[in-house]
């Protein structure tokens, strides 16, 4: 067994942190690490938190963590922020809102840049979840980038997903337009200390009257919260438990996890195939010639593609 894996299983947080880095950097040991961790995963409950930038995702994660810690549950947090497409750099600032838990060994917080991935999470977010799952965390909260249009990854990753909206914004309409209605297992109208929370909640309810979500028997509840005075947090936690119970009883849970696993395997297979194929194509003289022909307009991409599929 990899030394880091045994250290992680003994509860060494530095090993957990290091493994996430190696996985994120696509390091050589990645496969071995993840294979060895896999038998120890599947126990954690994964809670996704998405919504526009500034909606209060990080603050809400902080409030939920406080609540769960009072029940002595151990927590992992993965907070994703956008990587600049121009420089490859990123400022990861979600931790600022979670400082109360900085010294609590029951809370492990990790920030990630998207590093070019477009679905609201980083490529390695799913893997980081596994690392923290094997590390023995009871609940793993995942905060997405929150750019609105492209938050679908979280649905394929979390057991329960919260969509966070704010009063007095176009959030409601945006949600329908962006097609993220389907993502939400629970809607949160955060900043309910401000005017317009009831109106926003009613707006969401009437959208839900028109149809909702993935399961006709689960109508996403709409919960009003304030991370400033703590209002609505216990009710939100209650709704999360209800969804979890519903999803377990209805088989949704098992199905979601089954689909996630299938998607993961096919992703890995496709990745391998791609690499294998292109390394062969790259080394082939005929292909080089064909590509040259195409650039001189003597052949075309479709013809070449067909030829590649024939040969390999």
């Amino acid at each position, binding site marked *: 067994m990899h030394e880091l894996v045994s250290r992680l299983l003994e509860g060494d947080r*530095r090993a957990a942190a290091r493994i996430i880095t190696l996985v994120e950097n696509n390091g050589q040991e990645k496969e071995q690490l993840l294979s060895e961790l896999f038998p120890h995963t599947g126990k954690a409950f994964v809670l996704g938190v998405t919504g526009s930038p500034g909606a209060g995702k990080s603050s809400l994660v902080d409030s939920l963590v406080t609540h769960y810690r009072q029940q002595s549950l151990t927590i992992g947090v993965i907070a994703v922020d956008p990587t600049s497409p121009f420089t490859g750099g990123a*400022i990861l600032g979600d*931790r600022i809102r979670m400082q109360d838990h900085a010294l609590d060994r029951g809370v492990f917080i990790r920030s990630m840049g998207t590093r070019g991935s477009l679905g609201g999470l980083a490529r390695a977010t799913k893997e980081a979840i596994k690392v923290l799952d094997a590390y023995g965390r009871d609940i793993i909260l995942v905060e997405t980038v929150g750019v609105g249009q492209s938050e679908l990854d979280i649905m394929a990753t979390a057991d329960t997903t919260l969509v966070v909206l704010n009063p007095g914004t176009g959030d409601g309409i945006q949600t329908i337009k962006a097609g993220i209605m389907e993502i939400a297992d629970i809607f949160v109208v955060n900043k309910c200390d401000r005017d317009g929370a009831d109106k926003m909640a009613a707006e969401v309810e009437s959208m839900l009257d028109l149809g909702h979500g993935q399961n006709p028997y689960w109508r996403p509840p709409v919960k009003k919260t304030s991370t400033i005075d703590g209002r609505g947090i216990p009710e939100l936690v209650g709704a999360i438990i209800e969804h979890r119970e519903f999803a377990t009883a209805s088989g949704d849970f098992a199905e979601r996890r089954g689909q996630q696993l299938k998607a993961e395997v096919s992703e890995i297979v496709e990745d391998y195939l791609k690499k294998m194929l292109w390394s062969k194509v790259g080394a082939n003289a005929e292909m080089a010639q064909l590509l040259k022909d195409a650039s001189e307009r003597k052949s075309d991409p479709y013809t070449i593609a067909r030829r590649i599929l024939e040969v390999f």
Partner: protein
Amino acid sequence: MEECKIRVLVAKPGLDGHDRGAKVIARALRDGGMEVIYTGLHQTPEQVVEAAIQEDVDVIGLSILSGAHMTIFPRVKQLLLENGADNIMLIGGGTMPEEDVQALILSGDAKALFTPGTSTEDIITWIRQSVYSGESA
């Protein structure tokens, strides 16, 4: 396929409210292609070290303009050692007298310190060179 991205924790320890420099540095390092974990104001040395461990950063950068550098740098260094995390490079900047800078470097409590007026280009170059040479060594 391995991609190595330099990760830096930028923190403001203590009661010091001068956060302009820290923000300038955070942005500059991002534009230099690094991942910057910005933890904001009022950090204790314990919080800084714990965050650095969980985030598995290559570098901790402390911004101190309050005059408390002679106590904070040694404390953070000590905590890194106690936690077996002294592989993380400790650097910083802000207003500090030249003799203090020399003393902290000599004692090993800071690897490098950048006082007002240093160009962010120079800081980026220094971090890149130090992190990469540390890796190949």
